């Protein structure tokens, strides 16, 4: 004889109700989940697999080995990081004071300035890149103006090189830094600053000891978004770099378009993804994921 534990009142029925409930909500996210799985997880996973397949079709590290040995690839990595870091630093240097300025304005004026940030944000990337190409070229507006003002005699080269790429990328990335930073600064309780100054802090000191630390989560979120987007950037360096600034994404593209070299492209892509992942992982320990999404 076995002892059957008596069922508690309505236990089974309630379990069913609870699982139906869970399934309803999960079901609503299902189309999204399926799309992301089918269109990102599986394809990227497959690229991951390809990166470990050698020319003879067997498992090997040759794609990675070749990449590590090749001077061209090393140069691409250096360029990618150099451009990304420089863009991020310049964005922070320009964006922080601007976001601070906006956060100190009244709502009405801040919203007007916000339009200034949002218009470029929603203007096609390509249009903005093209505009810089027009402005920066040898016979472009900038060179013409400088010559007329007598600053230079010969047009200088500011496009189809690193300088041009940086100018364009900073312009494109700046809103990504300002938006989370500004939202964060707005949410800082102004009474904390009043409290600091009532306790005897000079405005400068109050800023550095109270405001700045409180704005760090926003700054970090902004820096992160900018840096991660820069790592994978393609369009702007391709046009403004004029073939002289080759970043990782461009190499991946040319590997596929020109050489049909999936293994090499995948390996480079995996490295790019892993670096991005590590940065995001470290950052997620520092700021919440919600803030990252808050663009």
């Amino acid at each position, binding site marked *: 004889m076995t002892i059957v534990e008596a069922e*508690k*009142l*309505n*236990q089974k*029925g*309630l379990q069913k*109700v*609870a699982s139906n*409930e869970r399934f309803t909500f999960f079901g609503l996210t299902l189309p999204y989940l399926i799309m992301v799985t089918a269109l990102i997880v599986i394809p990227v996973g497959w690229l991951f697999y390809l990166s470990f397949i050698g020319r003879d079709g067997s498992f090997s590290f040759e794609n990675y080995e070749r990449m590590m040995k090749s001077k061209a690839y090393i140069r691409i990595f250096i360029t990618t990081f150099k451009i990304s870091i420089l863009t991020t630093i310049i964005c922070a240097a320009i964006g922080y004071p601007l976001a601070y300025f906006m956060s100190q304005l009244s709502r009405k004026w801040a919203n007007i300035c916000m339009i200034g940030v949002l218009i470029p944000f929603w203007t096609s990337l390509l249009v903005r890149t093209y505009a810089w190409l027009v402005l920066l070229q040898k016979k472009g507006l900038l060179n013409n103006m400088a010559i007329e003002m007598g600053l230079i005699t010969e047009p200088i080269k500011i496009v189809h090189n690193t300088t041009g790429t940086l100018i364009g990328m900073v312009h494109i990335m700046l809103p990504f830094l300002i938006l989370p930073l500004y939202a964060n600064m707005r949410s800082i309780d102004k009474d904390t600053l009043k409290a600091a100054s009532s306790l005897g802090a000079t405005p400068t000191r109050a800023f550095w000891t109270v405001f700045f630390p409180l704005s760090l989560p926003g700054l970090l979120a902004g820096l992160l978004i900018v840096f991660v987007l820069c790592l994978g950037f393609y369009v702007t360096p391709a046009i403004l770099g004029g073939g002289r600034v080759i970043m990782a994404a461009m190499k991946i593209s040319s590997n596929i378009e020109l050489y049909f070299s999936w293994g090499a492209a995948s390996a480079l892509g995996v490295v790019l993804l892993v670096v991005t992942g590590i940065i995001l992982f470290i950052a997620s320990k520092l700021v919440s994921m919600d803030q990252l999404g808050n663009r």
Partner: protein
Amino acid sequence: MNETSLNISIREVTKKYDQFYALKDVSLEIKSGEFMTLLGPSGSGKTTLLMVLAGFTNPDYGSVKFGDEEVILKPPHLRGIGMVFQNYALFPHMTVEQNVGYPQKLRGVSAAETKRSVEEALNTVKLEGLGHRGINELSGGQRQRVALARAIVFKPKILLMDEPLSALDKKLREEMQIELRQLHDTLNMTTVYVTHDQKEALTMSDRITVINHGELMQLGTPNEIYEHPNNHFIADFIGESSLLPVSIRDGKTSLNGEKIVLAEKAEKDGDYLLVVRPEKAFLADKKVKGANYFSGKLIDSIFQGESQLLVVKLNSNDDGQEVRVRVPNESVTQKALPEVGQTVSIGLKVADSYVVS
């Protein structure tokens, strides 16, 4: 069975989250037409129990019957309850009329009948003529009334309220307590009311269920709960009280070595807490029989309008146990109040002396 209300029978309702019980084997009978308050501190499980009744929280097991009908597996919309939420949850995209008429619309009631019942409900909550207002044009108290009208418009047999008055200021809250109570007497629907405010519970309820840590601690009328708390948690939570440790040995009770007499003898020897309600303690000029006395030093005297609160540190107690005494503000006694620092004698009638575990 009453036509306008149903009794509620809760049996063995249990809800466990990971390692902690939100509700643990809760069984409770709520009579038809009763005003039952679920009282407890925040996180006690009182709201969880209300949500189980409403159908928004699924317990792990248990039974909830409205009348003779088991409802535990029914979704909320089939339970036929009226409900008022803490923050009212009025629909801002609808007018007052549309808000109140919404349950009728869901029930497919005719336009004319809806109009009539909405007017009736608005009259009941004293909002006649405000039907066309938007929600944003209403004051906090008015919103509260709209939420109530919306919950009663279809004459549900059971009305559930989750701290409906907590967002109002004190004066308005006290007015609404009386009004809600009167409303309940008129409509006579079974009402389950959740609050953490013990005074509110005492004011409004037919019976009170005190809940803590997901378990029922005591069930009784406001009077029973106040005068005969089951344990020190309730004695402390309901009303004001000073709890003094006493020990009972061989049926004899002593407080720091001094003998005291209790109204009822304790069943067993052991350590207990003597409950001293400030309004029951009094300043004793001379000792008469039928009361226990404690002497101590007056360390604070606070004017509170209708009364004066005295804080006395007991002499006999090394730990500096404090007893509070409330002296009503009467012109005669006002003069006789001792100064801070003086030694005073406090009396507590034997009839008011009881201990809790």
